[in-house]
């Protein structure tokens, strides 16, 4: 079978990739949201691996709730995104510098 290390390393690599994605992306909020989803996936992979390793169901329950909250978060995030697009005509991250009301 697979050692626990492999899953942990996979989670770390996934998290690192999505972290780099957040840094390099200055153009598109949608890709930013997708990077957040990837980060959650990495964290969930760690949770599932540890839950299986320790034979503790709490880890899997936690993944269940993370999935719920992530679905809610992305729904609200996309609604805000649509509003931003309606107001400004683009979703460029670099141009979002006018929060003075």
């Amino acid at each position, binding site marked *: 079978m697979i050692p626990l290390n492999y899953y942990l*390393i*996979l989670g770390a690599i996934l998290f690192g990739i999505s972290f780099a994605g957040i840094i390099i992306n200055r*153009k598109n909020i949608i890709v930013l949201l*997708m990077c957040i989803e*990837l980060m959650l996936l990495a964290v969930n992979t760690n949770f599932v691996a540890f839950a299986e390793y320790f034979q503790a169901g709490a880890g899997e329950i936690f993944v269940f709730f993370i999935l719920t909250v992530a679905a809610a978060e992305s729904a609200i995030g996309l609604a805000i995104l649509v509003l931003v697009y309606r107001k400004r005509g683009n979703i460029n991250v670099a141009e979002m510098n006018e929060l003075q009301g």
Partner: protein
Amino acid sequence: MFPVYQVVFFFFAALVVAASAMVIFSRNPVRAVLFLVLAFFASSVLWMLIQAEFLALVLIFVYVGAVMTLFLFVVMMLNIDLSRQQEKFVRFLPFALLVMVVFVGTLVAAYLPHHLPDLAATALVPTADGVSNTEQLGELLFTNYLYEFEIAGAILLVAIIASISLAFTGRKPNTKVQNIEKQHAATKQDRLRIIKMQAENK
């Protein structure tokens, strides 16, 4: 014996990593969403490999079925100018790569077997008894974690209300709607008219 678990693990792990790299590097957001779907599918296979079948299926149903569809809808609804996406992409790339290498290097160094001899010694084991993963999860969810489960339901309700009230900009003019208040306030005198008339002769 053919190491089927290892082969499946490494194939799908490579697939996850490649797909997620394509998510952040692809210029076209539609393509990025599709690569993200691929990453979710591959990692659900990886979850299935360690007996988390229910969560793997939920990942596909909830993420690929609902959330990614939502992303695709939004990507296609917004008319994003792709030609302007190219600028300044490379500017932050060295910094991002540096951060990523440091971060992943630190974590991988911490996960090395000689740091965690206890963890690395035993591999992940399949559950011996006949209890399925779904049954186990359901038992926990509806006993120990019932309160949290209901909070999750409330969070979903809040999310529904929030996203509808954010995206709803009022009814379009000239659409036909029921006015419930007016309907309830209607009385017999408004609607019913009794006419006196002669009975018909046969």
